[in-house]
């Protein structure tokens, strides 16, 4: 059931403007490829050329070595199914009737072959979760339901090659995941070759192993996620700065855009007079960092190790950060740097981090700064549970309280404190 697809020198022009310009690639049967690229890069056009909906100006498409042009409409429809982008329906067929039309290419001679069309239709409806809606009029479906109906129809064709044009565009995240999961199962269990044009790069890396990146009608990159999803390629095709990193939970590549276009804009008016220093990093510090950044404060951070999520935040937002080597205590040098950074700030915030022997010196540095008149804000919630120093940290915080340091329980209170004391 898998199909070898070869696209050779494919070009198409509209009014002498090249939409596709010499596309070449070959897919072995059973691959699952995400077709990426900005709007107007030619993704849909490429898919439509492969499905013979458009006639290329130059070049050829081969299915299992056979030229696509030599296949009849019926032969093609038994090998290839398309889930198009625009699935507008303006007639009053029931959902089931529309889905059953996916069996059309198999009707001729099917009495002899004894194909159980109804069972195939039923399974397709079941898989796509459209079964409860099968008697509804197709015209009354929502965008997402229509998408699933069209997908079910494509399944009825029992294709060897499945072309999907923005299959998840109209779907909520639940159905996006479900649909791509079905596609992946088809690919793995039945060896169906899949090409899907997709906008959501991060969704693409979750389900696809192969990528084609189009830009200006040409193949800019073709290969694995690491080969295709680079900062240079994203800039060259989509025209935006992006940060590429591995997702902390599943380890797939993630593309986060907006580094260049967002931070300079937001850096405006973030002078030192509004600088807030946040001690330590990790998941505990991120909410308060994000909230302060959003409210327009300029920030500094530290000390954190390179693996820390706070470090990534500082790196992405381009704010001063003190780096401490991983798994090591605070050195004298770091201590001094930290002190210097705190002196440059208007406020010091201590997020609800845990305290160990390793980072106790950060509290000492904070005490130092407070003694010199820099106001502090401390998350005072459940300090005992976070103290792994045998009460030393709690002791320091007790002293802070006597010195008039503000204690808060959540991020909103931090913002209130800062606002009231401006």
């Amino acid at each position: 059931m898998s199909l070898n697809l070869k696209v050779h020198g494919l070009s198409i022009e509209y009014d002498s403007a090249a939409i596709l310009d010499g596309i070449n690639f070959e897919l072995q049967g059973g691959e699952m490829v995400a077709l990426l690229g900005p709007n107007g890069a030619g993704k849909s056009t490429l898919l439509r050329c492969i499905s013979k909906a458009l006639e290329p100006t130059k070049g050829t498409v081969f299915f299992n070595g056979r030229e696509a042009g030599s296949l009849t409409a019926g032969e093609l429809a038994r090998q290839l199914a398309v889930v198009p982008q625009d699935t507008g329906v303006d007639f009053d067929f029931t959902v089931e009737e529309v889905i059953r039309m996916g069996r059309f290419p198999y009707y001729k001679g099917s009495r002899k072959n004894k194909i159980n069309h109804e069972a195939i239709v039923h399974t397709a409806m079941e898989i796509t979760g459209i079964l409860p809606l099968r008697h509804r009029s197709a015209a009354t479906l929502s965008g997402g339901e229509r998408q699933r109906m069209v997908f079910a129809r494509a399944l009825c064709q029992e294709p060897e090659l499945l072309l999907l044009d923005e299959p998840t565009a109209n779907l909520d995240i639940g159905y996006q995941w479900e649909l791509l999961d079905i596609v992946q199962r088809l690919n793995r269990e039945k060896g169906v070759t899949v090409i899907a044009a997709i906008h959501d790069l991060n969704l693409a890396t979750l389900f696809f192993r192969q990528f084609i990146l189009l830009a200006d009608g040409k193949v800019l990159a073709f290969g694995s996620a690491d080969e295709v999803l680079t900062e240079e390629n994203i800039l060259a095709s989509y025209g935006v700065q992006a940060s590429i990193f591995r997702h902390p939970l599943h380890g797939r590549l993630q593309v986060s855009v907006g580094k260049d276009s967002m931070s300079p804009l937001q850096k405006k008016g973030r002078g030192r007079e509004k600088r807030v220093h946040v001690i330590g990093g990790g998941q505990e510090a991120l909410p308060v960092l994000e909230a302060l950044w959003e409210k327009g404060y300029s920030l500094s951070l530290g000390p954190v190790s390179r693996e820390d999520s706070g470090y990534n935040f500082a790196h992405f937002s381009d704010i001063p950060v003190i780096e401490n080597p991983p798994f090591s205590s605070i050195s004298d040098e770091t201590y001094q740097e930290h002190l210097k950074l705190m002196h440059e700030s208007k406020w010091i915030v201590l997020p609800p981090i845990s305290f160990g022997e390793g980072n106790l010196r950060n509290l000492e540095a904070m005490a130092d700064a407070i003694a010199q008149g820099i106001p502090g804000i401390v998350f005072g919630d459940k300090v005992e549970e976070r103290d792994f120093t045998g009460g030393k940290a709690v002791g320091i915080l007790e002293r802070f309280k006597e010195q008039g340091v503000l204690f808060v329980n959540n991020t909103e209170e931090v913002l209130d404190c800062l606002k009231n004391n401006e």
Partner: protein
Amino acid sequence: MPLKGSGKKKIARIRRGTLFLSLILLLLATVFAAIVLGAASIPLKSALAVLLSPFTGLNGLFKGVEVTEVQRGIILQLRLPRVIQAAIVGASLSLAGAVYQGLFRNPMADPYVLGVSSGAALGAVAAMLTGGTLLFAGFTAVPLFAFIGGTSTIALVYYMSRVGKFVPVMTLLLSGIAVSAFLSAIVSLLTYFAGENLHQVVFWMMGGVSGANWSRVVAMLPYALIGFCCIYYYARELNVLLLGEETARHLGVNTERVKIIILAAASLLVAAAVSTSGIIGFVGLVVPHLIRIAVGPDHRVLLPASALLGAILLIAADTLARNIIAPAELPVGIITSMVGAPMFIYLLKKRKKLRYFNTGG
């Protein structure tokens, strides 16, 4: 009224069965009414005796019924061929309307877009003005010229709309409207210079089956049958084409070939109808919509049901045309337009959207 569960399919089947049964009964009733009613009144018993006389087994039923030769002549030589011609014309126009609406996915499509009827009209008028009584291979010149005019117009429109390898539906419709307007203008121009033939031309253009006779019926029937069979053969393809041409191609329909065959078949039906009966409006537009409202857009049901209902409506309209101002007659085209147009507006208002064409945004 959406019903849930598997009973829904059974209900749809029962609904279709009921539709066909009632259409056939209605057709029989209309045929008898059309034969009985008229300037010369004929008792129902006499009509039945004449019509059922070929079935010798039933002769015993009509022992006491007296049928004069005049009555027999009226029934067999005037009314019966007229009823049959009305049925064929009504069925052909409705069938063509259903096909055009489906193929072009346009609720307003009917045999008169695409210029088919204008082309046929031009051919017919040209024939009338140049003599009109010529006989040519079993045809009088009028139907033959109408047929040539109609089919060559659709061919012209089709090739005019060609973009590369494909013929997009929108271009086809627009070219049809333009060509239709152009040909209608020529028809008007010819009518202007019609001179002594003016009456014939104008009366023909108003539409009607008044000149019906057996030789016309026999000449038309093969075209109607060929047209219907060709179209019905592609009923499933027509269903798939409703999803859009690109989707239909993806589902394995050879759209270009199917379109040519179906268009040619429908144009054959229209040309045959127009050449014998002139311009009869609204049958082709309204009938398919009525059927869709009853049983949905599936062409396997829609096509035969539209043909039946079209036949019924045109027989009824013609009977009305013969009887309103008897012994004089009205052109049937006036009746169909006067009844059809308000009916269509009523449907539009009542349904808001016509079933299968969800044109609302």
